[in-house]
C-alpha cells in the first residue's frame, strides 16, 4: 500500500519535471526582442513562418476573398522565384498560412481576428476583405497584440483617417477617395455627363464609394438627381430604377456587388427612360462573375478598378507568368480585381520580414514593432499594381492608377481600360 503510493508520487513528480523541462526554454533571446514592446515571433529550427489571412471566403462575397487569398498563396509560391506550387523560404523557413474567414462582417472579423491572435506563431495578417470586418474590430484586436494587418481590398476611407487609424494597420488597396473621385472625373470630363444618379446596397463599401463619387461630381459642377439604395438579396429593382428614370440622368453609378449588380444591369436595360443613361459600376463588379450574372446586358457599361495594365510595375510579369500560374493553380481567370493587391501585400510583408528578421542559429526571431515599422517604411517597392509607398496612415497606394473599363463581351473582362487616371491622396 505504502509503496504504491510512493510510486504514484514519484511518477507524478517525474511527469511534472518533464513538463517543466518542456516549458522552460533555454534563454538566449536576441536583445531586440527584449526591447520590442510586443516581443518577437520566434520561428524555431525547421518551423515555418506563419502568415495569417483574414479574407471573406464564405457567403455571397466569397469570390472576392478567395481571389485575394489566391494572390497571397501565389506570392508565397513565387518567393523562390518559380511558380511550382511549393512555398518559398525566408532565412531557411518556409512560409505557411493560417486562413481565416472575415465573414464580411464585424462579428466575422472579430472571431477571425481572435482566432489568429490565439495562434502566437502568426507573424502578420493579410486581410481583411471587407472594411466592416476591419474597422474598429480586426484592426484594433491585431494592433493591440502588435500584429500587422495589411489589407489588399479594404477601400473604405475611414480605416486610414488619422483619428481612426490603428497603428498596425496598412493597406495596398487604393482608398475609395481615389476611385470614387476618378469615376466622377471620368463621367464628367470624359463622358460629358452633367447629371448622375447613384444606388448603393447598404454595404459600407458601396455607400462610401457612391458618396465620394457624388461629392466629387457636384464639385465638378454636375447634378445628382437621385441617391437611392437597395436591399441585398432582393431581385426586383424595377422600382428603384423607375425612380431613377423619372428624371433620367446621364450616368447611373451603382458600385455594388455581383448578384444585385447583374440584376440592376439587366433591369436597367428594360426600364423605359434609361435608354440613354450610361451605367457604371466599380471594382466589386469588375469580375467575370458579374459578367456571368449580367449577361449581354453588361455590354457597353463601364466598370472602374485598379488599372492592371498601366501598372508601373511588372506588367509583363503579371500578364505572363502570374496569370498562367493563377490559371494553373486555381482554374480560370482571376475572379476579382484584388488578387494583385494581395500579391503585393504579401511581397511587402516578405521584404519586411527579410529586413528585420534576426537569424540565430537555425531559429529566426522577428520583432513585431520593428516589423511594423519596416512595413510603414516601405517606399518605392515595385509590385504588380504599381509602386508601393506607404504613408503614416497606412495607405500604401497613396498614389494609384485607377482605370475605367468598358465591357465588350460578357465572355471576358476587358483587357485594357478606356480611361486611366493617376490619383494621389492629399
Amino acid at each position, binding site marked *: 500500500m505504502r509503496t504504491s503510493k510512493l510510486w504514484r508520487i514519484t511518477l507524478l513528480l517525474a511527469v511534472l519535471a518533464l*513538463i517543466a523541462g*518542456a*516549458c522552460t526554454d533555454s534563454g538566449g533571446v536576441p536583445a531586440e526582442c527584449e526591447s520590442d514592446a510586443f516581443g518577437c515571433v520566434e520561428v524555431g529550427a525547421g518551423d515555418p513562418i506563419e502568415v495569417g489571412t483574414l479574407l471573406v*471566403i*464564405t457567403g455571397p462575397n*466569397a469570390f472576392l476573398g478567395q481571389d485575394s487569398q489566391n494572390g497571397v498563396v501565389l506570392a508565397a509560391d513565387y518567393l523562390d522565384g518559380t511558380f511550382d506550387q511549393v512555398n518559398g523560404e525566408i532565412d531557411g523557413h518556409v512560409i505557411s498560412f493560417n*486562413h*481565416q*474567414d472575415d465573414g*464580411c*462582417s*464585424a*462579428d466575422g472579423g*472579430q*472571431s*477571425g481576428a*481572435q*482566432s489568429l*491572435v*490565439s*495562434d*502566437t506563431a502568426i507573424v502578420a495578417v493579410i486581410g481583411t476583405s471587407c472594411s*466592416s470586418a476591419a*474597422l*474598429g*474590430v480586426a484592426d*484594433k484586436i491585431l494592433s493591440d497584440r502588435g500584429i500587422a494587418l495589411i489589407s489588399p481590398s479594404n477601400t473604405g476611407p*475611414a480605416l486610414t483617417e488619422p483619428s*481612426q487609424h490603428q497603428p498596425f494597420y496598412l493597406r495596398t488597396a487604393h482608398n475609395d477617395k481615389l476611385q470614387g473621385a476618378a469615376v466622377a472625373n471620368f463621367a464628367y470630363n470624359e463622358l460629358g455627363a452633367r447629371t448622375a444618379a447613384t444606388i*448603393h446596397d*447598404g*454595404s*459600407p463599401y*458601396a*455607400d*462610401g464609394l457612391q458618396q465620394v463619387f457624388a461629392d466629387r461630381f457636384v464639385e465638378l459642377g454636375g447634378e445628382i438627381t437621385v*441617391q437611392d*439604395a437597395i*436591399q*441585398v438579396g432582393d431581385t426586383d429593382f424595377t422600382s428603384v430604377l423607375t425612380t431613377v428614370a423619372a428624371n433620367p440622368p446621364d450616368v447611373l453609378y451603382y458600385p455594388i456587388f455581383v448578384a444585385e449588380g447583374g440584376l440592376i444591369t439587366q433591369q436597367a436595360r428594360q426600364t423605359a427612360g434609361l435608354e440613354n443613361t450610361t451605367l457604371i459600376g466599380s471594382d466589386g463588379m469588375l469580375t467575370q462573375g458579374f459578367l456571368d450574372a449580367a449577361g449581354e446586358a453588361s455590354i457597353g457599361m463601364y466598370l472602374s478598378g485598379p488599372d492592371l495594365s498601366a501598372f508601373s510595375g511588372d506588367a509583363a510579369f503579371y500578364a505572363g507568368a502570374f496569370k498562367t500560374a493563377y490559371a494553373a493553380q486555381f*482554374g480560370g481567370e482571376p475572379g476579382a480585381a484584388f488578387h494583385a493587391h494581395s500579391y503585393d501585400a504579401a511581397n511587402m510583408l516578405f521584404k519586411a520580414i527579410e529586413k528585420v528578421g534576426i537569424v540565430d542559429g537555425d531559429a529566426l526571431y522577428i520583432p513585431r514593432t520593428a516589423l511594423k515599422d519596416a512595413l510603414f517604411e516601405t517606399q518605392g517597392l515595385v509590385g504588380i499594381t504599381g509602386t508601393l509607398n506607404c504613408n503614416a496612415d497606412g495607405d500604401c497606394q497613396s498614389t494609384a492608377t485607377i482605370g475605367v473599363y468598358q465591357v465588350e463581351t460578357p465572355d471576358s473582362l476587358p483587357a485594357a481600360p478606356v480611361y486611366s487616371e493617376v490619383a494621389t491622396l492629399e
Partner: protein
Amino acid sequence: MRAALSRDNVRAGLIGGVTVLYLALVGMIERFQDRDVITDVIGLGTLLILIGLAGTGYMASRPPKPRPGRKPVTANPALIGLVAGTTAGVLAGAVILILELLISAGVDVRSVLASVTPGMLSTMEFGLGPVGGALILVGLGAALGAGAGALRLLSDQLRDTVTFTLTAVLLMSLMEPILSAVLDGLSLPDRWLYEGGGLTVLGAVLTVVAAGAGRWFWKEREPQRKEAVALLPADRRTLYRKLAVFAAVAFLVVLPWLVGSFISDVLGTVGLYVLLGLGLNIVVGYAGLLDLGYVAFFAVGAYATGVLTSPASYLVREEGQLFAEKGLTNFWVALPFVVLIAVIIGILIGAPVLRLRGDYLAIVTLGFGEIIRTLVLSDWLAPYLGGAQGLLNVPPPPPEALDLRAPQNVYYLILVFCGIAAFVAWRLSDSRIGRAWAAMREDESVAEAMGVSIIRYKLLAFAMGAGVGSLGGVFFAAKIGSIFPNSFGLLVSINVLSVIILGGLGSIPGVIVGSAVLVGLPELLREFAEFRLLIYGAILVAIMILRPEGLVPNKRRQRELHARDAEAELSVIVTDEATS
C-alpha cells in the same frame, strides 16, 4: 446468399452509394481531404468515403424490424453488408468512371458540376486512375461493407467498443483546434499528439488504446456501477449532485484560461446566444408565442447601447455635454436604460399583434424584425444610427483596468448575465406567472376562463423576452465595439429559435446545450467554411428527427408531448390501472 441479395439490401447499398457520390459532388470530399485525420496517413476526405461505404454495410445489416405482413428475412449480417457495400461501391465507381470518360471525351463537366475537379476525382480514385479507382471503390465497398456487417456478429460490448474507438479517433482529430489550444494554454507540449492539423500516428495509437480500453472497462463495470449508484443513500446522492453542480460552475469559471483567447471568444458568442435563447424561451417556450423576429430586440439592445455610449453617435456628438453630465455615456449607467427601451419596444411590438395566433404571429414578428433591420440600415436614420457605415467605437464597459473587451473578460461578463437571465427565467417559470403562461400555452380560451388576462400575460412575455434579448445586444456591442446592420439579419432570429427548439423548448439547460451545438460547433468548424451551413442544416434535421423533444427536454414540455398523444386517445385510454 439469396436472402442477402434481397431488394432491401441492394436498396440500402444504392442509398449508401448515392450518399458517397453526394459528398463528392458537393465538394466535401475534396475540401475535407485538405484536413488530415492522421497526418500523412489518411485525410478526412478519404475517411468520409470509407465511412460512407462501411456505414452502408452497417446500416443495411441492422437486425430487421418485424413488419406487418412480411416475414423477417434472416441472413448473415456480414453477407448483407457485403452485398450492400458492394452495391454502393459499384454505383460510386461507375459514376466516377462515367465522369472520367465524359471529361476525356472533352465534355466540360465542371461547367455544370462545379465540384468535379481533378482533385476530387483523384481522391475518389485513391490516386489510382479511373479504372483502378473504380475497382478499388468496389473492392473497398465489399470489404468494408462485409466488415461492418460482421460487427453485428460481435458481442454488444465488443461492437460498442469498436465503434466507440473509431469515433473517438475521428473526434480527437477534429478537436485539434480546441485540444491544442488547451495544451498550449496549459503550456504543455502538443507535438506528440498533433501535427499539421491532424493526429500523429502516435497520437492515433494512443487514442485507440485509451478509448478502447476505457470503453471496454466502462461497459464491463456498468452493472456494478448502476448498482452502486442505486445503493447510495439519498443524502449522499444529493451531496454528489451538489458537488457536480459546484464542479460545473468551477469548470465554467476556469474554462477561458484553459482554452485561450480564441475559444474564449467563441464561448462569449455562445454566451450571447444563451442570453438570446433564454429571452426567446420566455416568449416561445413559456408563453407559446412563435416569434420569428427576435433579432429586433438584439438590434435594439446593440444600437441603443451604441447610441447612448459611442462618441460617434449623433446623440453623444450633439448632446454630448448633457450626456456626459448625466454620466449616461457610461456603459453601466446606460445598461438599465437600454433594457427599458427594449421593454417598451417589446410592448409596442406586442400590443398590436396579440390577437394573432400561430403562424400569423410568426410572420408578423418576422416582419417587425425586418423592419428594425431595415431602419438601422437606412439612409433615412443614418444620421442617428450610422446607416451602412455602422456605429463605431462603442467603448468597452468601464473600468478600463478590467479590460472588459479581452475575450476572457467578456466571457465572464456574459457568464454573469447569463446566470442572472437563467435565474429570472427559472423563477418566472416556477411562479404564478409561469403557471398562467403554461395554461395560456395549452389552451388560451380555458386559461382566460380561469381568469388569466391573455393580453397582460402575452405582453409580459414580450416585455420580458425583449428585456433579456436586449442584453444580448448590449453585450454584443460591448464585445465587438462596432455595430453594423448586417449583424442583425433574419438568420439571427432563425438561429436563436433553432437553439431553443434543438435544446428543448422551455428548458434552461437546453438553451445552453443548444447554443453550444449550433453556435459553438460551427465556430470551431471554421475551416470547413463553405460547408458550415450545409452541416448545420443537416444537423438540425437529424437531431430534430432523432429527438423531436430536444436534446435536454423540459419536463413539462415532455409531458405536453405525452399529453397530446394521450389526448388523441381521449376516451379510450385505460388509465386507472396505470395510475392507481
